[in-house]
């Protein structure tokens, strides 16, 4: 039952992704992608990772995709007829490379399959939390630094240039309320 569900969801994810990458309308592509991510989230759940599944929905399908939509609208890219579409010349090399890479990984993965470990239980939230904050506590700190600097960078880029390179009167780069609107979303993490 669960196995069947896995294959169905796998098919859904692949097909939705296919639609997403061939879609000329960026907004539609995002919608297809969200579908794919939902399917993936359920796959995660089936593979015994409920917490990752939840985050997938919240962060990926929720926050990041919304961020994309936000930028698409901000830049007014919702007019597919104006955008250049990839032609056949773009597709062939891409498909060949993709096929080679996927094929190679599949060949290598299948050539000597790892033995099935029997009866693996679902990893609970408690176990996950312990691993996250005890074993990989440092990693959480690193990623928090990175998020901080994502904010700093986006803020810096979003800020309008204070003035041409001339000695500033007040001595310090004017820190105006930045309009780095793009940078706000990562606080959801």
């Amino acid at each position, binding site marked *: 039952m669960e196995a069947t569900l896995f294959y169905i969801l796998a098919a859904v994810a692949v097909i939705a992704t296919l639609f997403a990458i061939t879609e000329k309308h960026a907004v539609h592509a995002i919608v297809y992608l969200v579908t794919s991510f939902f399917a993936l989230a359920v796959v995660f759940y089936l593979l015994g990772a409920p917490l990752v599944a939840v985050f997938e929905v919240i962060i990926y399908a929720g926050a990041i995709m919304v961020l994309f939509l936000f930028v698409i609208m901000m830049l007014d890219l919702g007019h597919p007829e104006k955008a250049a579409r990839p032609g056949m010349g773009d597709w062939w090399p891409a498909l060949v*490379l993709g096929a080679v890479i996927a094929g190679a990984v599949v*060949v290598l993965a299948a050539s000597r399959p790892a033995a099935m470990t029997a009866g693996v239980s679902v990893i609970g939230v408690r176990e996950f939390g312990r691993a996250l904050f005890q074993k990989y506590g440092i990693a959480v700190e690193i990623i928090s630094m990175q998020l901080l600097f994502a904010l700093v960078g986006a803020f810096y880029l979003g800020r309008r240039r204070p003035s041409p390179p001339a000695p500033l009167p007040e001595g310090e780069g004017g820190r105006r309320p930045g309009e780095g609107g793009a940078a706000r979303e990562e606080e959801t993490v």
Partner: protein
Amino acid sequence: MKLYLALILLLPLLGGTINAIVGRKLPRRLTETLACGMVWGAFVCALLAFAAYRGPETVELASWLAAFDFRAPITLYLDSLSLVMVLMITFVCGLIHLYAVGYMADDPSYARFFALLNLFVFAMLVLVLAENLPLLYLGWEGVGFCSYALIGFWYREEKNATAGRKAFIVTRIGDTAFGIAIVWCFQLFQTVSISQINQMGFLMPVGVVTALGLLFLAGAMGKSAQLPLTVWLPDAMAGPTPVSALIHAATMVTAGVYLLARMFPLIGTSATVQAAIALTGGLTAFYAATCALAQRDLKRVLAYSTISQIGYMVLGVGCGAITAATFHLLVHAFFKALLFLGAGCVITALHHEQDIFRMGGLRTTLPRTFWPFLAGAICLAGIPLTGGFFSKDAILLAVWEKGGGLYGGLYLLGLLTALLTSIYTFRMVYLVFGGEGAHPHTLPRVMEWMLVPLALLGLFGGILNLPEYLGKGWLGEFLATAGVKVSHGEELVLQGIAALVALTGLSLARYRYGGARRAERLVEAEAEPTGVTAFLLNGWYLDNLYRILFIRPYEALSRFLWTRVDEGVIDDSLDRLADGLGRTGQGLGSWTNGRVSLYITSFAAGLALILGWLAWVVW
């Protein structure tokens, strides 16, 4: 001994460093005194070391390189060969330093000049004294670097900078071969100590030794300007004259000969390598002599003659005659330094005129330069009883002794070269000093004084290693290498032949360039090359017959060798190679066409190739 050796190295280094750092701030006299004093100090130390010398000695000064099982400490090795070299280098370089004080009197960048000069001496001494190959290579490259800086940085013009770069890059080709040889030696013998490697040569198959020997030979070719890597040396004349003297006489170019002599116990075990060395030397000697015949620039004549003489030394090494080669190296150092310094005097006196056809009359107006220069010239030409005669003869003797088709041919070639040498030497002397000419301006005294000791050494250098029938060969005993054993009679006959050849060359040159004929040659030289035929019509039949039969083919050949082979084929093929590489590079650069899509595609293609390869391997 350790102290002496350390001082020999440290003094020039110290002088160079001080002058490089604070030289510009110091008063001029102090800078000059420092530079000269350091080199002469090294010479004094060398003398003391000579006095204390009892036998080969290895001195470890400090640990230098140590990585995993690789060890190359700063170890110096003093044996008779290196001792003789050190004495010669410090002495000749000391004289050149003093000369440079006069030569550089008007130049503002004297501090940099003397700093580089001192460093040059230091690098050369490191090269000579090194006990292991990496240290030797350090000196080797240091010499290359200093010569680059001295040739190129001097006149601040594009032409000279290019000459410096050319010297650097061409010698670098040889250096690369040498570098490969070093690493390979380490791989084979698990040591880089020269004396140990030399003792272990017999452990290796002949093929390997041959390959190693050829690599060393390639290294020597680059540094000593042997065929086919000769092209940099004539162009290196762009530097100031003391530098030319330094490069040509005492230091840089002899490094290749020294390397071959040093490694001879190893590489000499292969007959192929010996033959290759001898052939390289013989051909180079001949080739450069013919080129020298057609030159108009005084310094270029001397440059080609250097190449030719170095060719003799290499030929000597190729015959196993280390003593003879070293002997010639020493004597040549004296008289070539003398000739260059003399040429420097001439050029300075004539307001930087270098064309020998525009000179003349200096015999009377510049006597203090003329007589030493003449002494140098007769040494170079190998006129009997001069140092050059004995040393060159020792090499020819060794070639003769080897016998066989190849060496017999090389002997004849060597004789022919001796004839050519004599001709171009006296051509130069007659053109520069004969006839009438304008009044030169006076020279700094120190420049002319420096010529005298060199002239004496050149003339009487033969005493260093007299032929056996005249007494003991001191150098041969000191170097303790197996000398060539020939009967006195045979030796005398061979020397007679050589003397005859040299005198023939002298008379030929006198016939063509001496006395009244000189003026004709000058007129001839004024005209364009096609003017030669016009001159034919004027009825100098005898001269023309002589031209047609003898001189013209040679001039044609030498001009051909110079313009076509030297500047055409060798230069050109290098140029073409460089051009091809540049074009390829440009093509590769246009890969970076600025479009991210291509960058990503290339990146992904790399991944696909790697993964595809892995899948293929596993499958």
